[in-house]
C-alpha cells in the first residue's frame, strides 16, 4: 500500500477538520479534539488499507472524536458553579448564535449538519463518515434543518 506523506493530509484537510470540530464541539474544545483526531489518525495511518478516500477517512476519525467529546460532556453535565473569578471566554466566533443552536441539536443532527455545511459533504459521504445509511444521513440533515428553521425563520 503506497500511502502519501501524512503531511499532505494535514495540508489538504487540517483546516476543514478544525472547522468541523469548531462547529460540532465549539471553539473552546475544538483544539483538543483536533489534536486527538490527528494523533489517532497518525497512529492508524501505516496500517490503512485503502488510500482512495482519505478525506472521508480523516472525517470518520474526527466524527468519532467529536461524538466521544459530546458523550463525555453529557456525563459531566452536572449543575455548574459560577465561573471562577477572572475566567474569560475565548473571543466568540462569528458563528456563535447559529452554530450554538446547531450544537444544541441531537448529536446525529449536529454532526450531519456540520458535514453538510462546513465541508460541503454529499449524503453519500455523510453516511460513510457517520456509519449510517444514506437515507438516515438525509433524514438527519433535514430534521436538523427543520428544528433550526422553527426558530430561525419565525
Amino acid at each position, binding site marked *: 500500500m503506497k*500511502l502519501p506523506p*501524512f*503531511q499532505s493530509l494535514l495540508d489538504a484537510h487540517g483546516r476543514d*477538520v478544525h*472547522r468541523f470540530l469548531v462547529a460540532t464541539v465549539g471553539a473552546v474544545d475544538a483544539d483538543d479534539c483536533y489534536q486527538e483526531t490527528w494523533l489517532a489518525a497518525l497512529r492508524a495511518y501505516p496500517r490503512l488499507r485503502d488510500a482512495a478516500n482519505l478525506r472521508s477517512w480523516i472525517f470518520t476519525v474526527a466524527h468519532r472524536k467529536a461524538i466521544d467529546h459530546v458523550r463525555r460532556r453529557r456525563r459531566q453535565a452536572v449543575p455548574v458553579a459560577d465561573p471562577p473569578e477572572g475566567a474569560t471566554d475565548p473571543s466568540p466566533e462569528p458563528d456563535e448564535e447559529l452554530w450554538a443552536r446547531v450544537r444544541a441539536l441531537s448529536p446525529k443532527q449536529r454532526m450531519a449538519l456540520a458535514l*453538510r455545511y462546513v465541508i460541503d459533504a454529499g449524503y453519500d459521504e455523510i453516511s460513510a463518515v457517520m456509519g449510517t445509511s444514506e437515507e438516515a444521513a438525509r433524514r438527519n440533515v433535514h430534521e436538523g*434543518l427543520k428544528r433550526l428553521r422553527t426558530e430561525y425563520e419565525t
Partner: protein
Amino acid sequence: MNDRLERALTHTAHEWTPDPPDISAAAARAGLLDVAYATVDSPVGRLLLARTPRGLVRVAYVPPDGEDAVLEALAGKLSPRVIAAPRALDEARRELDEYFAGARTRFELPLDWHLIRGFGRRVLEATARVPYGAVSTYKQVAAQAGNARASRAAGNALGSNPMPIVVPCHRVLNTGGGLGGYTGGLERKRLLLAIERGQPVLEGLG
C-alpha cells in the same frame, strides 16, 4: 433546496479561518513522528532536511517543482508518518548555518543511515571521514569501502548520497583531478569547495 438558513450555515461556517493548532510536537511526544522535516534557505539553494528519532536521515536540494517527490520517497522508504516539524530540525539547521558561515568544519549531529546500505553505505562512511577543506577521489573512497576497482559503483553511491553537504560527497573528485559529478549540479559542488577553502560566498545560488 438552498434557502436562507442553509446559506447562513454555509456562510458562517466558512468565515472561521483561525489556523489549526500544530500537532507535530504532540505527535513527537506520542512517539508517532517517524519522519520530521523542514525546508531551509542556504547559499546553495533551498534544502529539505529530514530526521527520524535516530538522527538526520536526509538532506535534499529542493527541485524546482517542489519537495513533493522527496517527501513521497521518504514516505515509501521509511514511514508514511512524515510531518513538517521545523523545530525538530533546529539542531541540523544551526550546524548547517555555522558550516555555511565558515564557522564549522565538522558536523556533530547524529546521523541515521537507513536510506543506504551495503557497499554504498561504506563508500559514504569513508566519504564522511574526508576532512573539511581536503579532497579525495572516487578510487580512494572505493578502496576504503573495500573494493579499489569499484570506483564507478562508488560514484553511483555518491550520486545517491541521502545527506549531501553533511556527508561531504562534494569532496570526492575524479582521479585525474577533474571535478566529477554532483547530485546537486556542479555549480553547487564548486561553491561548497570554495566555502571550505575560505573563499567568501558573495552570492548564493538560487
